[in-house]
Structures are given as structure tokens and as C-alpha cells.
């Protein structure tokens, strides 16, 4: 078992997210569904170890997560593409390579993997561009590539195609699924689209009014 969450309460400002019980297995794919504002992003932030629950228990790979410690090592096992992504004021390549460079990967290796990923995501034509020259859809695909290039065993995608052109949605979905299969990675993808949830995974986790139901 990859994740096991029990009786978790997590507060962001006035918003409260509760998870009674939720377990996620290694190598599976999950769709997180629910209306906008229901708490899908907060749930993914918990899975990415970016939020500290007020109470409850989160077990990751069999170890209970101790939030008083530095979580950098578990955080680095997760590749997370947030909704409404921010691109750094760097070139497209440097943006995609950022997660690798903070992990200390050699420059040449970064270059190779970034190039590969850009090709797979049909982003090669954006090479050498600066982030300000991208459309919203292109930005989101670059942000997605930035996460997928990490080779993480856990991939969290928050509304990954929200701003992507209809013509590219299929490519993105297919590439994500292929990659997860190749790496036997666990995929958690949130979406407000019922048909996308169906296409991506038979396992659905629904989030309603701040309550997560598995």
C-alpha cells in the first residue's frame, strides 16, 4: 500500500477538508472528481506533503509521516503539477528541468531528459522560448512536462487539461497514461469532467463539500 490516510482534518483558511479513510495502492490510477471548490486541490496538496493536517494519520510506504521533520525526501518521491501553474522567469527548457536541477541531476542529463520529454509532449517547437511568449494552454503543457520529467513513482495532476486546447487533450491524456504504465507509477488525477475521469481511471475518489470519499 502506498498511501493510507485516516481521520485527517486539514484547514486552509476557512476551508476544512476531512478524510475519514482513504487508501491508495502502488501502480494504480485514481481520478479525483468533484465540483469546483469542493476540495480536490487541497486533497492533492495533502498527498504531496505540502499541507500539514491538524489531526489524523498519514502513512506513506508503510511509515507514518512525521510532520515535525523535514519532509524533503518524501516530497521528492512525488511529482506534482498544480492547477493554474506558475512558470518561472526562465526558458521553457529551464522550467522543465527545474525539478531535476534541485535534485542535483547533472546538467547534461537534465538536458537529455528535458529534450526527450518535450518531444513526447509535442513541445519541441517551444525550445528556446521564454515563458512570457507562451499561450495559456502551452504553459499548462510545459508545467505538465516539468512534472512528468521527474520520473517520480507518484504522479499527482490537478486538472491537467483545464486550459489545454481540445486538440491536444487526447495527446496529453495518452502520454500521461503511457508514462505511468512504463514506470509503474501511481497516478492521481483530479478533474471536474466526468468523461475524463472515466478515460483515465476506473477508480474514482469523490470530493464533496470538503469531504473525501473513497
Amino acid at each position, binding site marked *: 500500500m502506498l498511501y493510507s490516510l485516516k481521520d485527517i482534518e486539514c484547514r486552509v483558511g476557512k476551508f476544512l477538508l476531512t478524510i475519514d479513510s482513504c487508501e491508495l495502492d502502488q501502480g494504480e490510477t485514481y481520478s479525483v472528481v468533484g465540483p469546483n471548490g469542493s476540495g480536490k486541490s487541497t486533497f492533492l496538496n495533502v498527498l504531496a506533503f*505540502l499541507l500539514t493536517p491538524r489531526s489524523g494519520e498519514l502513512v506513506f510506504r508503510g511509515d507514518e509521516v512525521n510532520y515535525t521533520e523535514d519532509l524533503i525526501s518524501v516530497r521528492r518521491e512525488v511529482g506534482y503539477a498544480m492547477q493554474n*501553474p*506558475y512558470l518561472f522567469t526562465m526558458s521553457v527548457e529551464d522550467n522543465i528541468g*527545474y*525539478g531535476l536541477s*534541485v535534485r542535483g541531476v547533472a546538467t547534461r542529463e537534465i538536458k537529455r531528459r528535458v529534450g526527450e520529454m518535450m518531444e513526447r509532449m509535442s513541445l519541441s517547437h517551444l525550445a528556446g522560448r521564454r515563458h512570457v511568449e507562451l499561450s495559456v494552454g502551452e504553459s499548462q503543457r510545459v508545467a505538465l512536462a516539468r512534472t512528468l520529467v521527474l520520473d517520480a513513482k507518484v504522479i499527482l495532476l490537478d486538472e491537467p487539461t483545464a486550459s489545454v486546447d481540445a486538440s491536444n487533450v487526447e495527446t496529453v491524456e495518452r502520454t500521461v497514461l503511457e508514462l505511468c504504465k512504463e514506470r509503474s507509477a501511481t497516478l492521481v488525477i483530479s478533474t471536474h469532467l466526468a468523461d475524463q475521469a472515466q478515460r483515465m481511471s476506473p477508480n474514482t475518489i469523490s470530493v464533496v463539500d470538503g469531504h473525501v470519499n473513497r
Partner: protein
Amino acid sequence: MDYLGDGLAGAVRIIVSGDADFLSIVSVSLLVSLTSTCLATLTGVPLGIAVAQHRFKGRGFILMILNTLMSLPTVVVGLMLYSFLSRRGPLGEMGLLYTRSAIVIGQWVLAFPIIAGLTAAAVKGLDSRIRQTALSLGADAHQASWVFLREARYGVFAAVVAGFGRVFAEVGVSMMLGGNIRAYTRTITTAIALETSKGEFAMGIALGLVLLAVALVVNIVFWTLRGRTE
């Protein structure tokens, strides 16, 4: 017309021939202004970031003070510091009046609020997602702070440039605290004031051209950097 023409021709001669007085004035100006800008950067940038990022008691008060100081006339700063640094003043025993250090201190007081205030504004204007994005991609706390600073770099650099621009072109502090002593505290602006009153327009124009050139270079550097990395 001859009057102006002669002045310009004389100015060009002074610059081309590398007149000793001229070079000394320019180097004194650069020395004190760069020193004060460095010190104001080292102190102002951290304060600006702190004020922009953290909510603490007295934060609004600090911002108000910074904004007030930003528009303080240089002669007022000069006057206040004069009374501090004079032998009769509280810091008198240090004997700083009419030294380069006195100008540096005065210019630091001028540049510090600008650099801190503009840094605060720049950092506040940054996207709130930067740090979160870095963390989500596996950055540790230091790396996230670093990328945050990196995103703030143009704003911070612009703040530093604005601070330098103010001190390099100010005359009140240099005159009152430095005393316009030749080859020691005579800066470009105090020299222009002196030379104009003496009717030595050529030297005044030559120095004015340097002021103009420095302003131009600073702006070119700024825009080039910005254009390249944005």
C-alpha cells in the same frame, strides 16, 4: 551662442584630455556613491523582503516611515546628519564631518529607504504561487527561497539602480557633510555647483555629461539584463 559653444568645446577637451581634477572628481563620486549603494543594498534588500513577506507588529509603521524617507529632500537629511556628526553633536567624537565617510552615511540614509521600499513593493507584487510551485517540484526550503529571490531579481535590481541614481545625482548631502574639499569630498554634483558659481562652464558641462552618461549606462544595463532573461 558662442558662450554655450565654448563651454561644450571646453567640456569635450576636458574629457578627452583626462584632466586630473576632472578624473579625481568623477572617481570620488563613483567611490562614495557605489559604497553607499552597496551598504544600502545589503541592508535595504533584506528589510524590503522581510517587510513584504512577513506580517509582524509595526510592519505598517515601517512601510510608512520608508515611504516618507523616500521623498525626503536631501538637504534635510544633510542637515539632520550634520547636527549628529558635528563635534557638537552626539556622534561628534568620531570626527566624521567633512569626510568621505560622512557622505557615504548620508547617501546611505538616502538610498536605504528607496531600496528597501522598492524591494518590498517588487516582492509583494510577485506571484504567490512561486514558493509553492518550487516546493511541489521537490525544492527544499532554501532552494524555494532562492528561486523566489531569483524571480524578484528585476524588481530588486531596479530598486538598487533607483537608489544609486538618487545618491549619484544628489547634491545636498555631499555638500553639507562632505564640504566640497578638493580631491577628497568634491563630487560631481558639488563640483558642478562650485564651477557654475565660478563661471567655469566647461568643467560643469563635462561633469554634467558624465552624470548623463552614467544614468544612460545604468539604464542600458538594466534593460539589457531584463530583456535577456525575462
